[in-house]
């Protein structure tokens, strides 16, 4: 090869390989427009009574107001459409006074009648997120407008303020404009659910301009929003499925925010290159569950031995550090979280416990796991760890649909799964993991423990300090005796251009708010 050829090839390689480290090129997005790149193709409907997937919920949050919102630390409710409220002494009935002068995007006033209509509508439609309402409000008539600006909500149990907000700050109770809904109702669809899937009847910070499925959602700032017109005139959420393509679009200046980057890509975004990354632990949990219906897992010693056999730090490495290691069922950042981490890899202790259980020669067990990256690698690591205490694990990698069906049918032995909080109150997790009667995870793993009585009592406890203590007790019992090895609270990481302000990841998709976003 001549030196000229070598030079040409060298230059070509350099142009191709030295890209991302260079400073960000200027954004090609206009100053008053914000463009998100992410995955919206899982969205089914933007009707607040139906929105339940990640993107649809946080988009619905921008279009619809709820009565209240969460404080940033998720310890109390703060006003939103309701300017104030009072609670009955037994915390079962709340009366809300609406903020005066609020308008829907249609120009109609936001009234107590609209709130009544909206929550009753969610109750009657009985769609995916409706259980968040029906679990706590038994009948549609329990929500009633008592005056043009006053609405009374009667719950089926005592509702401490955070739990009340879990229902009434949730997108499913978003306030819709009854006149718009009724105008678009049909005899076959009297609550206009189909029309509402991709149309707007809200009063939120942004109006829905259009939704091209699998392509983009376009929003426009609402001029008469009660908090003032949002700084960004237009917001686009563009479908970019592939994380590498998202990164390229961000670096090229075609989007301002990349919502679903891989952990290795996040590391490439540095302030020096004109980008920042914001991250938060989510209110969700990755765990290994053991079905107590399988003989060896009936033994508490075996369950504890397994907790001592697993290498938690190695699992964190498999997740490329995009998790926080945690071992309790209430995630970090949520009210009542117990930060205890009693387990770390200790093979002597684990083997001793296996001996105590009379299973020093080990046993065979099947572990099912979905194809979602990197879970098969986590399963392989757990197989390797458990082999060291004599447990021979047969890993079966299945479609996530099959993992779910097997888990529901209670025919698994080991399963790697995840649980994301539906609302930011420890009740949601305690019920799932520790209350057999709720027929969720404790039921699926056939673990019927007296701690369920504490779970059922804690949700009704009115004293915050005592309530927090009860949840800590529940977590301790589950940590010591439960059939779960909790190994991670996943992080949510968002990459953005350094000039973007007011876009913060939230532990829950129901609490995303970019009404103050600017750049």
């Amino acid at each position, binding site marked *: 090869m001549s030196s000229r050829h070598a030079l040409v090839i060298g230059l070509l390689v350099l142009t*191709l390989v030295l*890209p991302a480290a260079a400073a960000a090129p200027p954004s090609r997005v206009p100053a008053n427009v914000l463009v998100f790149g992410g995955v919206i193709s899982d969205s089914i409907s933007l009707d607040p009574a139906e929105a339940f997937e990640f993107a649809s919920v946080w988009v619905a949050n921008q279009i619809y107001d709820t009565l209240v919102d969460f404080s940033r630390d998720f310890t109390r409710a703060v006003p939103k459409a309701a300017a104030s409220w009072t609670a009955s002494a037994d915390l079962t009935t709340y009366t809300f006074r609406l903020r005066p002068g609020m308008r829907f995007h249609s120009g109609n006033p936001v009234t107590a009648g609209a709130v009544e209509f909206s929550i009753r509508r969610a109750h009657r439609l*009985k769609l995916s997120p409706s259980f968040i309402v029906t679990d706590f409000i038994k009948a549609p008539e329990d929500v009633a407008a008592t005056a043009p600006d006053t609405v009374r909500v009667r719950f089926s149990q005592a509702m401490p303020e955070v739990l009340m907000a879990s229902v009434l700050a949730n997108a499913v109770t978003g306030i819709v404009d009854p006149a718009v809904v009724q105008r678009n109702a049909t005899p076959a669809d009297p609550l206009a659910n189909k029309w509402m899937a991709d149309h707007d009847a809200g009063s939120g910070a942004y109006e829905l301009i259009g939704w*091209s499925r699998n392509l983009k959602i376009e929003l426009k700032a609402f001029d008469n929003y009660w908090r003032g017109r949002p700084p960004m005139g237009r917001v686009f959420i563009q479908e970019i499925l592939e994380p*590498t*393509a998202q990164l390229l*679009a961000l670096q*090229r200046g075609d989007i301002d925010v990349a919502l679903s980057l891989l952990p290795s890509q996040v590391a490439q975004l540095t302030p020096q290159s004109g980008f920042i990354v914001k991250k938060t632990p989510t209110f969700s949990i990755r765990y290994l569950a053991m079905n107590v219906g399988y003989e060896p897992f009936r033994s508490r010693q075996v369950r504890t031995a397994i907790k001592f056999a697993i290498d938690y730090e190695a699992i964190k490495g498999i997740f490329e550090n995009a998790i926080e290691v945690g071992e309790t069922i209430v995630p970090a950042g949520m009210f009542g979280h117990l930060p205890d981490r009693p387990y770390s890899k200790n093979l002597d202790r684990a083997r001793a416990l296996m001996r105590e259980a009379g299973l020093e020669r080990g046993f065979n067990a099947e572990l099912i796991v979905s194809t979602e990256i990197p879970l098969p690698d986590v399963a392989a690591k757990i197989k390797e760890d458990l082999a060291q205490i004599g447990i021979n694990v047969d890993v079966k990698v299945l479609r996530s649909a099959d993992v779910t069906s097997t888990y529901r049918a209670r025919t698994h032995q080991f399963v790697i799964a995840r649980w994301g909080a539906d609302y930011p109150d420890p009740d949601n997790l305690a019920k799932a993991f520790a209350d057999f009667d709720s027929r969720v995870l404790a039921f699926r793993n056939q673990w019927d423990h007296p701690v369920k009585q504490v779970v059922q009592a804690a949700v009704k406890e009115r004293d915050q300090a005592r309530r927090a203590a009860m949840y800590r007790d529940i977590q301790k019992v589950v940590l010591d005796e439960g059939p779960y090895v909790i190994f991670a609270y996943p992080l949510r990481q968002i990459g953005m251009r350094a000039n973007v302000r007011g876009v913060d990841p939230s532990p829950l998709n129901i609490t995303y708010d970019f009404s103050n976003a600017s750049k």
Partner: protein
Amino acid sequence: MWSYLVRRLLLASVAIAGVLVIVFFLSHVIPGDPVGAILGPQAPQDLIDDLRQRYGLDRPLYEQFVRFVERLAHGDLGTSLATKRPVIRDLIEFFPATIELATASILLGVVVGVSVGVISAVTHGRWIDHAVRFFSLIGLSMPVFWLGLILLYIFYFKFGLLPGPGQLDVFLTRPPFVTGMVLVDSLIARDFDTFGNAIHHLWLPAIVLGSHALVGIARITRASMLEVLGLDYIKVARAKGLAERTVVFKHALRNALLPIITVIGIYYGGLLEGAVLTETVFSWPGLGRYATSAILSQDFAAIMGVTILIALIFSLANLVVDLAYGILNPKIRYE
């Protein structure tokens, strides 16, 4: 000719009916709960039971099949469990994007593939021929996903010559729906900016998706041309002193076209099924992703809808290829 056409259409209907029966029962035999899969691991049981009842999934399998056939007879493909919309509406929304991409890919494959194949054949044994065969092998071996990302990197990110993922720039509005194909609809609406932008967005996915077809067509063209170029009538044509261009294009290529047309038909049918990897890399809203997610979530109505569409496409593609034989070779008669 007409009786042949009617007979072929009848045979195609029988084949499609057979495919439907097989796919319906096979997709229901696969273990798993579609409602549980759609609603996810956290949905309460009563909600799952309610949805299962609403979609008739609690009924015996034969009853579900009878209901499916009844609905089909009325042109109703049912409602997708995943999108909660009529399947026919989903297909109308997603299939046009696939038609656009598949057509652009096959055009690229035909134009470049046939040209390269002819050049390779007429330079048989020389360095151009070796180079074509070498690059064909690379083209066939290159994973589509990888090729897509590399092309995005070079042409979009590095040099900014072509746009990034998506069917249109995010700030542009789709033209009013007529055919669902952005190119066609923007022409109908005389929106030439959108048309130009859509063409730009089409280049990279079309190159990626068409790369395998291009290589396949080039290889079959080369092989078929080599065979024809060795026949006596070509030698006679050359002996008569005809120009090489006339020999190659008028006498050789036309007679070499039959196997090429067959391959083009098969490739086009395959491309119209959608291509999940290309659609994923370029965020293309086509049928491939819809079909894949339907299969993964056991969305029966969507699976059946896509099956019907694909069976129709293949039957039609085969029929068109067979009819094209007669046009290209008058010796072929339809009986």
